[in-house]
């Protein structure tokens, strides 16, 4: 057993921290929430230059070929300062889907462009009918028509759709809604005919969209993986995405605890710094418990994914636990900062709004508890 990061991972962390703090101060993050695009070319170009978009893409496709634990290091740092932009959609969800589902031609064509930061991707997966998170609830259809497939239907909560070059559209090619078989993955030109993108205004000010596919025709070359065989890939990608979100939450929580502890030493009431009061100390202790547990279950999940060991139960446990732990964690943070933390320009709302968004992204605790139930033989 070894809970240490490698020297390389520590270097990656240092360099990521420097870049993120420089490029993404709080004023920038809040500006980007209001900005239509939501990030700058400087920021995106900088990340690509540092090799982040190439980080987990194998060397044969122009990447660096590092593991998911390395990505976790990076995501923690991005989560610490809430770095905006389409990195998660492109370098993790999109890139890994192509890597795991694509044929040689597709991988050779697309992955080097993901690695270099040239293109951006977005997974068009969830749908309006999903009042509860259920990724098998797919009604968007793709019907064979000669050499092509024609896609129809509406996707919702599609991240970074406004800047994506390609969507990976999860569509039904056979079977009934909520049936896990009969689902296929299609690479769709985001600017192509019949695709329309409408922004959703969200709590965390992140960029999510409704994407309507109206008679969108794609060639058979653009099928990712086997027809009707998309589901196992989606299940795997969901695991990576869920653990990635956990890493962002861990990063955010680490920063919030640092800020809260500083405040406990500085803020004086009743003639004493508030950190001497047991009620406040116990809030901090509860934050530490939530954070330590979140960290290690996230690392364990990442390690299992890297090792190719059975990971469904632990990745599900991680997302279920971290989602709820971080949510409770930011409530304690707000109690410590009290009135000052309720102000729009304070750090606390920036983190607590994101805690809520991250809880929902790629499945909340309710969803993953049902997955874990299946895994413990219920």
């Amino acid at each position, binding site marked *: 057993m070894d*809970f240490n990061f490698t020297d390389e991972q520590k270097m990656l962390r240092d360099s990521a921290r420097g870049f993120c703090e420089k490029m993404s101060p709080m004023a920038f993050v809040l500006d980007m929430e209001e900005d239509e695009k939501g990030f700058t070319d400087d920021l995106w170009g900088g990340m690509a230059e540092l090799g982040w978009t190439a980080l987990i893409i194998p060397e044969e496709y122009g990447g660096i070929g590092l593991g998911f634990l390395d990505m976790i290091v990076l995501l923690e740092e991005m989560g610490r300062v809430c770095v905006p932009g389409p990195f998660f959609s492109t370098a993790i969800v999109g890139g890994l889907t192509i890597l795991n589902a694509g044929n040689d031609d597709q991988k050779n064509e697309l992955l080097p462009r993901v690695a270099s930061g040239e293109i951006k991707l977005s997974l068009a997966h969830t749908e309006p009918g999903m009042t509860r998170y259920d990724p098998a609830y797919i009604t968007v259809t793709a019907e064979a028509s000669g050499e092509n497939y024609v896609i129809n239907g509406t996707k919702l909560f599609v991240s970074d759709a406004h800047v994506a070059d390609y969507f990976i559209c999860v569509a039904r090619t056979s079977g009934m809604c909520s049936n896990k078989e009969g689902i296929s993955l299609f690479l769709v030109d985001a600017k192509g005919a019949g695709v329309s993108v409408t922004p959703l205004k969200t709590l965390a000010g992140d960029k999510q969209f409704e994407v309507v596919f109206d008679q969108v025709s794609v060639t058979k070359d653009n099928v990712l993986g086997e027809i009707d065989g998309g589901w196992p890939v989606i299940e795997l990608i969901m695991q990576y995405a869920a653990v990635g979100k956990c890493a962002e939450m861990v990063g955010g929580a680490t920063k919030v605890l640092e800020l809260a502890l500083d405040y*406990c030493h500085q803020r004086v009431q009743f003639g004493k710094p508030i950190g001497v009061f047991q009620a406040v100390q*116990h809030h901090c202790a509860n934050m530490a418990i939530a954070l330590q547990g979140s960290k*290690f279950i996230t690392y364990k999940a990442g390690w299992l994914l890297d090792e190719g060991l059975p990971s469904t139960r*632990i990745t599900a*446990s991680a997302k279920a636990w971290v989602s709820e732990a971080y949510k409770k964690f930011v409530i304690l943070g707000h109690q410590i900062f009290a009135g000052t933390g309720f102000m729009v320009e304070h750090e606390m709302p920036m983190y607590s709004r994101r805690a809520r968004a991250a809880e929902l992204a790629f499945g909340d605790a309710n969803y993953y*508890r049902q997955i874990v139930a299946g895994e413990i033989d*219920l």
Partner: protein
Amino acid sequence: MNFGYTEEEEKFRERLNAFLDEELTEEIARQNWEDLGVGPEAREFSKKLYEAGFMGLPWPKEYGGQGLSPTYDFILIDELGKRWEAHVPLDVGYTMVGHTILRRGSDEQKQEFIPRIIRGEIEFGLGYTEPNAGSDLAGMMMKAEDKGDYFLINGQKTFNTESHYADYHWLAARTQNDPNTPKHKGITLFIVDQFAPGIDVRPMITMSGERTNEVYYDDVKVPKSRVVGEVNKGFYYMMEAIDSERNHVFVPARLWPMVDEMVSFAKETTYQGRPLAEDPAVRAKIAQMAIELEVAQMLADNARWLELNELPITMEPEITKVMISELEQRMVDDAMQILGLYGQLDENSKYVPIRGRIEWFWRHSFMPTIGAGTSEVGRNVIAQRGLGLPRG
């Protein structure tokens, strides 16, 4: 990072499980776990555990151990715990006292006690708490007077849980009463024969039917050879041991049997013609138990890893302690809710589910958040020692 075990460690685990399949029963497990008193069956099991080669692997060779990684003891504790929450039968000696003797005891004490601890032959009862020294342990008043060749000890201990079956009393007593000396600098540790003249052990019965004890000392003579380490350093030895003790005593694996029992119950029990296991609310509750146990296991693994590698420890074992004790309460509450009316039945009732274990666990669950330090003191430790917040 690596969260796996070595091949040798996994082989040890396999051999151990084959042994436990044959030798461990629920009756033996309950003798220690419920502090009913370790009877002949559990003492016999204890010796077999040693003879089969599962005890003492991490302990020094010169005292009968094998000098290997402490991981082997953690595997032993985990695998026992997964079966009816079993412990090493004489575990106060094996997981707590023995380590302090190794660290601070004299050569004679090591020779006398360590081999017998490893062989599973002797047990110690912890003699710390007093009626007026609970969370404020350094305020203990039990008096040990230096009489030249021996110490003369008088006073009262309470909540000394093993004293009715232990062979020795691991006693902390006051040897310095100077009002100008801080109270934690006047405490000494002693190894006292449990059956020495002047010791009176009286039962106290808990709400979960366990026996603990009051122990009275009336002019008990303890030879100086039984002082552990230096006089007046006892409190320091207790505190330096506490992290390792937490690592050995707060063991998430012991709660897995409850999850397994609840999974079986949910599959075998129907409501309105359908198994409870198909009810999403029931599934969510049981899954949450498994999720929190995995998190607790990672906290424990991290704290153990720090200990194994002699890395700085501040709050990590305390975090495991607070988490696991409160998790037990959440788990048992959910389990009680799933059992419904049947959850209140005594283990001897003809209608009782899961052999009454959940009903017992609920009664027991008030102890872990109090024993070995309350959750409140634990949170103070986390905040002050771990996070650097000031003492009030």
